[in-house]
């Protein structure tokens, strides 16, 4: 079991040695490749072999014929806190609709809570054919154990083929427990989903290694096929006003939660710290006036909670506190996306942000040095481009 190297095929080119993230491959004296204990059978090397000498050997388990056939239906876990459905649930209903149609099954939502008001309505409007609802005091505040217990019980009873949940801190907190309880595979934080029509397999694509590689993952022998899905990747389903469906109210005997919520502090901070932020929207002198940082905040919000950064020129002008400054004298940042608006890109600014994964610059001067480091440069007036960008992000 594990990685197999066909030594007859191996030409000793060494291509696979360089790609192994775990240093598990090495060339022998004769140039052919061997694998050591560091191998995690991740499969990263398979495609690197030009002659197809590498394969993953798995013990083929006799498939209980038909055992998987009892599972039907695509479920979406509808995340709800304080009676408000999380946006990601509508996104899941959006992609779920497409997949469910391809599989020819119902699209269902699961709603857990206690006296949370009528949350099922919006789920129907966004495409759910059926909503499974559990109302129980143990589910009043989210804690992982009763949530997992409830969802597992529903899965055991109704046997869905696919279960999707948002890869939010709530979803990622309890879905892994469900996977253990129902003996299912779980793919984390997916950014792409597809189904293979004849095998009915859910093809789940997700980034790993800090986004450096993408993996396609399937669960051939277990049901349901479970995945958490990264928020904001899929477009939310278009609501159809007045659309309804079947409501299944389930009474479950749940255990008293072991974790007690003493206090919930909603600190929706507008001031996300730029250091360590995944997304940063930075304004420079081109903003022209302090109040225009509102535009930056709006863009940050449209990105789903980005931090707002600033050039020193903007800080020195007193438009924003030095807490936000990026660069030589400010913070050094390495976000996934850095959007510089009205920043010229002097070296003192660049040293603080030029290792960002993706840099986007908006500046009206086509010769601005910021374009030298930008992956995408937009030459234009930020007061025209940014509002359009916000619109496009929200749309």
């Amino acid at each position, binding site marked *: 079991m594990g990685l197999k190297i066909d030594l007859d095929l191996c030409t000793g080119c060494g291509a696979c040695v360089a790609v192994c993230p775990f240093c598990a491959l090495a060339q022998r004296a004769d140039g052919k490749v061997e694998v050591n204990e560091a191998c995690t059978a991740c499969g990263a090397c*398979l*495609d690197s072999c030009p002659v197809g000498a590498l394969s993953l050997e798995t013990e083929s388990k006799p498939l209980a014929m038909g055992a998987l056939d009892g599972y039907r239906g695509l479920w979406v876990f509808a995340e709800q806190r304080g009676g408000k459905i999380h946006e990601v649930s509508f996104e899941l209903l959006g992609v779920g609709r497409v997949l469910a149609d391809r599989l020819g099954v119902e699209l269902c939502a699961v709603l857990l809570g206690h006296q949370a008001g009528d949350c099922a309505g919006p789920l129907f409007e966004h495409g759910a054919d059926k909503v499974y609802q559990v109302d129980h005091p143990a589910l009043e505040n989210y804690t992982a154990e009763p949530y997992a217990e409830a969802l597992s019980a529903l899965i055991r009873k109704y046997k869905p083929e696919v279960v999707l949940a948002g890869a939010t801190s709530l979803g990622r907190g309890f879905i892994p427990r469900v996977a253990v309880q129902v003996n299912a595979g779980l793919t984390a934080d997916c950014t792409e989903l597809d189904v293979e029509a004849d095998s009915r397999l859910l093809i789940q694509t997700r980034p790993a290694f800090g986004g450096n590689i993408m993996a396609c993952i399937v669960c051939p022998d277990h049901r349901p096929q479970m995945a958490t899905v990264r928020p904001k990747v899929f477009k939310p389903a278009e609501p159809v006003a007045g659309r309804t469906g079947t409501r299944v109210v389930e009474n479950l005997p749940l255990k008293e939660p072991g974790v007690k919520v003493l206090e919930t502090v909603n600190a929706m901070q507008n001031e996300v710290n730029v250091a360590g932020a995944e997304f940063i929207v930075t304004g420079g002198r081109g903003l022209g006036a302090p109040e225009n940082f509102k535009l930056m905040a709006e863009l940050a919000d449209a990105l789903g909670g980005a931090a707002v950064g600033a050039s020193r020129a903007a800080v020195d002008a007193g438009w924003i506190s030095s807490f936000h400054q990026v660069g030589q004298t400010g913070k050094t940042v390495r976000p996934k996306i850095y959007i510089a608006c009205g920043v010229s890109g002097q070296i003192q600014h660049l040293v603080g942000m030029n290792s960002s994964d993706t840099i986007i610059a908006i500046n009206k001067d086509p010769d601005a040095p910021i374009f030298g480091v930008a992956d995408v440069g937009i030459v*234009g007036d930020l007061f025209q481009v940014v509002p359009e960008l916000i619109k496009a992000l929200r749309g």
Partner: protein
Amino acid sequence: MHIVVCAKQVPNTTQVRINPETNTLVREGVESIMNPFDENALEMALQLKERHPGTQVTVLTMGPPQAVDILKEAVGRGADEVMLLCDKAFAGSDTWATSYALSMAIGKLPKPDLVLFGKQAIDGDTAQVGPGVADWLGMPCITCACKIEIAGNRALVERAFEDGYEKLEVALPCALTVLKEANVPRMASLRGKMAAKKLQVAPTTAEMVGADPAKLGLSASPTRVMKIFSPPPKTGGVLWQGEEPAVMAQRLVDLLRERKLI
């Protein structure tokens, strides 16, 4: 008190680069480190040990023989005991099988009051092992913890959400996954490092922890990696000009979506 910290050896993914020509991972020069979040989990344990004398900290890792390096690092910082779960039978485990194996190993240790995990491993990036182990052990698990206080046999824990945080109370034993914000991990002491150099760690096998072979490794893992590929390569910078702002904005958003950046 007995605290078990689960730690994973990972490649330092912040050093990983993609070769733009072959579009494959360039691993050269990438060091193996203790998963950064696990450093925070260990630090949380060591701080509890300072505050509650008599506390024992055991660090557990499942991995190849060279994963012993992170156990040595842990001893250098002040861990009391270590366990290296190492067996070919574990190779290729997904989070389901990893969680099972770790839970069996923990079952062999003195009964823990607290089991700590990092929020997630920076290579696999799933954040599933912590809650998974807790489930096998039948313990509550609080994910994304940034603060803990122990009073008697109860713990007061602060956990972060996307938009705020919660104060929670839980009876011990329990499991936590720990965030970066929780603390600043200490560095190993000189004496600790010296002790660690001498440390001999015999691998603990699947059989020694009484693990069911049918629940281990690649063949027991429900998930299968079908294919690994590099994300679409970064286009060398492009400059758009002279078009309608709305057109350029929409194209940008489409591009970001396509690259899975948002």
